[in-house]
Every structure is written in structure tokens, then in C-alpha cells.
């Protein structure tokens, strides 16, 4: 490494801009999956594989409620932080993490009870692709929150801009909105 030290520092004030641009780009992958799903479903002759009646919606609905309320708790956590209440921030942040983890648990329970697999035609393929890819984002979100929680114990870390927290919270709302669209597509729109 031969560069002078000051050049190797990042420009933290641009991090949020970069992250928002990333989220816009990331949303296009979901858009691609959603439009692919809609195209395949509307064109399908037999959407459901033999022996499958449809998707059970009660557990996922509970999961939806959990995920939407976690968007509220993360907002409360951010508010606590902006008021300088670090303990309140940690409490709501941890609650959000717990809700996220519960969502992942609920998803795992749902997956284990299904009679179709990833390779059961396009129905199974799209179902696991959409829920799996979204679940990966939820897991990433929980991981990022854990990272921010640990960082909150570093003294003076949040004295200046809290861009990491802002970015994580933004990511969490994004994951939430994606889930709502996903829930409507997969569970509400059952009849082909």
C-alpha cells in the first residue's frame, strides 16, 4: 500500500447517498422476480402442482403483522437515538431484532410444513425463490442491526452522524415493503 493515509479514509457523509442508490438498484431484482412470478402465474394452465390445495395464510399473516410492527419499533429506536436516549435506542433496537428473528422462525416453520419443494414446477420454484430471497434480506437486516448494536457500545461512536443506523433502518423498511407486496402476490392472490 503506497497511498498516503488520508486518502484511504472513506467519505462517511456520502454513505447514506450510496446506500439509497443501492436500495433503488436492489428493488429492481425484486421487481424482476415479481414480474416473472406474475407472468408465469397468469400464463399457467395448472398453477398448483397435483395434491396441493393452495397456501395456508394464517401463519404468514401473523408473520406479516410481526414484520410490520418491527418497522414501528425501529422507528421508535431511531427517535430515541435522535433524542440522545441511548438505552431506549438499544431496547427498541433489540425488540426489532427479536421481531425479525421471530419472522425468520415463522418462515422456517411454514417451510417445514409444506408438501411441495423447490423443484415442484414453477409454483414451488417461485414460492421458495421469493420467500427465500426475501428471508435472506431479513437475515441480513437482523445481522446489520446486531452490528449496529455492538457499535453503539463503542464510546462516542454515535456522537456525529448515525448513518449506519439510518441505513439499517431504511433497509428494514425496504424489506418490510417488499414483504407486503410479496404477501399480496403469494397469499392474497391465490386464484389464478
Amino acid at each position: 500500500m503506497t497511498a498516503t493515509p488520508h486518502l484511504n479514509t472513506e467519505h462517511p457523509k456520502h454513505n447514506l447517498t450510496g446506500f439509497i442508490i443501492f436500495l433503488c438498484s436492489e428493488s429492481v431484482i425484486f421487481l424482476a422476480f415479481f414480474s416473472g412470478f406474475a407472468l408465469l402465474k397468469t400464463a399457467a394452465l395448472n398453477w398448483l402442482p397435483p395434491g396441493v390445495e393452495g397456501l395456508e395464510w394464517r401463519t404468514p399473516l401473523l408473520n406479516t403483522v410481526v414484520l410490520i410492527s418491527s418497522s414501528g419499533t425501529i422507528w421508535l429506536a431511531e427517535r430515541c437515538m435522535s433524542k440522545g436516549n441511548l438505552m431506549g435506542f438499544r431496547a427498541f433496537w433489540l425488540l426489532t431484532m427479536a421481531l425479525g428473528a421471530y419472522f425468520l422462525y415463522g418462515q422456517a416453520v411454514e417451510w417445514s410444513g409444506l408438501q411441495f419443494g423447490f423443484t415442484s414446477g414453477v409454483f414451488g420454484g417461485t414460492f421458495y425463490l421469493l420467500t427465500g430471497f426475501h428471508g435472506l434480506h431479513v437475515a441480513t437486516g437482523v445481522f446489520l442491526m446486531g452490528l449496529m448494536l455492538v457499535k453503539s457500545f463503542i464510546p462516542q461512536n454515535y456522537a456525529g452522524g448515525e448513518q449506519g443506523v439510518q441505513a439499517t433502518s431504511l433497509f428494514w423498511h425496504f424489506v418490510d415493503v417488499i414483504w407486503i407486496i410479496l404477501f399480496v402476490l403469494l397469499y392474497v392472490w391465490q386464484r389464478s
Partner: protein
Amino acid sequence: MTSATFPPSPPENTSWSRYFGFNTDAKVIGIQYIVTAFFFFLIGGLLAMIIRGELITPPADLVDRTVYNGIYTMHGTIMLFLFIFPVLNGLNNLLIPTMIGAPDMAFPRLNAVAFWLVPIFGALLIGSFFVPGGPAYSGWWSYPPVSTQNPLGHFINGQGLWITAVALSGVSSIMGAINFVTTILRMRSPGMGFFMMPVYCWTALAAQSLQLIGLPALTGGAVMLLMDLSFGTSFYQPEGGGDPVLYQHFFWFYSHPAVYVIILPVFGIFSELFPVYSRKPLFGYVYVCLASFIIVALGLVVWVHHMFPSGVAQWMRNFFMFSTMLIAVPTGVKVFAWLGTIWRGKLRLTTPMLFCLGGLFNFVFAGITGIMLATVPVDIHVSNTYFVVGHFHYVIYGAAVMGIFAAIYHWFPKFIGRMPYEGLGKLHFLLTFIGANLNFLPMHPLGLMGMPRRVSSYDPEFAFWNVLASLGAFLLGVSIIPFLLNMVSAWVRGPKAPHNPWNAIGLEWLLPSPPPEDNFGEHVPTVISRPYGYGTGAPLVEHQAEIEKQLTLQEASA
């Protein structure tokens, strides 16, 4: 700002070793990108030589048919994902920070990671030549069902490596795009509003926005393709309820805009260079800037024109034919702006200017065949023939690569600090221009006569035009020799370049050659007028006279 603090002194550390490691300086990364890209360019070019060697005679006598399928697939993939995109990212790294007066990119480490992904996925792609079954052989589109076949049954196969490499290339490009867009939006010098920005930055912003919107769709489609190939899903398999045409939508939703990702920065290069070598302001600056974003908007809704014969609905054919033709309007605005710039200018026919003029000529030709291809009946008639191959290569080689060469000759003195040789440069131009036209023009009559693409043997009636095309291709191969010779010898022992050898106007020309590591550092000049003030005498920045005097004194004392 006092002139005593400016200009910054030239860089002290110019050791070669920094080009071989993880460096976060945008100018080092830029050169790393460009040199890596040209390494792969030679491999892709060698494959092109094999293709044209095979096609110089009607029977399939040079390589095995299956090998041939792998060769054209890899030629296309390497040239796009390992040459054109990296070389443009290299130019972006060199030009964007210096043109807007930023010390470096917004995210220097992300920038270096994005670069180092290139040799990694390059190795994956080249490595696929050595796996059982050889490289991917389904063409650079990799349409299913061909691309979801795995006859040998190995988990690691050419097609799987191809998809992984393309997905990694997407990750690298997204990282680059986030960086370029953030840098342009947030790090411009004082006084540089959007309509004071050089056109190259406008076109880079437009092109990188397209990357951000388009690439995720391709990545999503590629993930599903990999699942079909390796894990037995049926997203694109009709027997499982899937639809192969869905992949074509994903693929072209990105890969058509990808052509604009390539050509927009080249429009930027033309817009930078024509004013310099015509000594006139860019004609219609504001319209040229805005046309870039009109191209972005329209470029996102033309992709189905690649799928006219794929069984899409008639309304789609009509809509996409219309939207494709509409793109000729903003593109035409640019072409006329360049002609208006050259018109009655004091032309200086240097190597970069010759490449620009040649590139513009080829681009107009490609634009005409493009309008022909947009028309549904013509497109269906010549679909999958050499007409399409000819059109595409006029755009990519005839216009884009020639524009890139122009940029390299133009900015070489700035970033290397030495002058390239004019004689070798002009020889390079002459061979490239003749070679490209001799190579790609005969493809049009061949396509109209009905010669299909991606075949290694053909009817003897096509022989005449194929011989011409192959001779042109070999000429193009030869044209690289003076280029490489020029670059290497100029870098090693070329005459020292002054800070502004072409008498150009722009922030990058107010830096020493080569610029110091943090460019202007703390002393970024304030921009007070629009770019391209040639012949107007208006200074670009505050204290311009003092800055230039200091730079000249610095050079005289060196």
C-alpha cells in the same frame, strides 16, 4: 485562494508496484482497469481471429463445430464483460474525479473491490475452457433451453461458470455504478452546477444509472437460470410450467440498455474531443446533456425489439418498434450537435480527432442499419443473420472502441505524463478504420442474402463477402500492434507531456501531468463558466491565469 498554494506539485511516488496491489487511488484503479481490459481484449481478439479464420472458407475445417460454438460465445462474453465495461470503468475512474475537481471517488475501497472482482471473474470465465465439456456454448445471450443443458452432468460446467462470472461482473458493475453516481452527485467542485458539468460526466451519470436499473434484472434472471441448470427447478422449462421467453425478457431488459451503457460515455468522449480539435464551443451543450437522459428513459423501453421473432404479442411488436425508432431523435440531436461543432471550425487532425471522426462516421452508418432493424418486417427477415452481427459490430467496434481509442490518445499525456507518438497513432487509426469497415461492411450483404450467424460452415455462394470480412478482421488484428507499441514505448520513454498539450479547456487540464494523488486537494478552483469556451476567451475557473502561469513555471523548472 492564493496562487501560492496552487498548483499542487506532481506526484512523488510513481513506482510500478502500486499497479499490482490493492490501491484505493482512483487514478491507479483507472489504469489497472484499462490495462486488465486490454489483456482480455487480446484474448477476445484472438478468438475473433479464430472465428474469421474458420469462416474464410465455406467448410468447417479449422476447428471442431462444438469448439466453434464455445469460441463465439466466449468472444462475445469476454469482449463485453471483460473488455468494454472494464475499460469504460477505467476511463470513469480517471476522468470523473479530475473533471469535477474531486480528490478521489466517494467510496475508494468499494472502488478497489469492484476492480479486483474483474480478474476474479475473468479467471472463472477463462478457466471454463479447461473444465470437462469446455466453455459455455449457447451464445452470449445464453438462452434456455440450450443454456440449461448439462449433458456431461458435472456440477462445475462451462455454462455454470459463465452464469457465475456474469453475476459477479454484475456485482462489480453495481459497486462501480454506486460509486460513480455518488461521486458525480455529491463531490463536484464549487460553482459546478449540473449545467456547468462536462458532457462526459453527464453521459457517465446516464450510463451508470442504466447499470443500476438494468443489471439487477439480469442478475435475477441469471440466478433463475443457474437454479434451472444446477438444481432442477423449472422457471424456464415448459414441462414444469416455466417459460423460456421469460429469460429473454430478463436478459434484454438489461442487455439492450447495456449498449447505451457502452455508447453513452463514447458520446461523452465525442462531445469532449470535437470542441478541442475544432476550437469551437460544443454546439447545443444543454441539449446534448438532456439527450443523454432521454436516451436513458427510452432505452429502458425498447428491449423487446430483440424478441420480435420470439412469439411476442403484436401490440408489443408495434410499441417496441415505435419506441426504438424514437431513440433516433435524441441520438440525432447529438450527431447534429457534433456536426455543428465541427462546422467551420479550425480542425486539427490529431490521432484522437481522427478516431473521433472515424467513430462518428461508423456510428451514423450503424444508426441507419439500426433504424432498419427496428422495423418489424425487416427485423424478422434478417433476424439471426450476419446483418445483425454487422450492425452490432459497427456500433461496438466502429463507434465505441474507436471512441475509446480516441479517449486513450487524448488523455494519455494527462494521466501518464508522457506524449504518445503521432505517427504510430495515425497508422493505428488508418488500420482500424479500414479494417473495421472491411470486416463489418460485408456482413450486411451476407445477412441480407440469408447467411445465419453462429455457424462454422456455409454455402459457397457466401464465400466472396466472407473472404473480405476475414481480411478486414486480420487487418484489425494487425492494427493492435502499432497501438501496443505506441502505448508501451510512450509510457517508458515518450517525451514529457506539459499540463495541457492539446490546449483543452477543463478542470483536468489545470492539473500537472500526471496529476497528484489527491488531484486539487484542498484547493479546488471555483468554476465560473460553462465548459468548452473555445474561442470565447472566457476563463473556466477563478484565477485561471495564475494557475496556468504556475503550472508552466513548474514544468519549466522540472
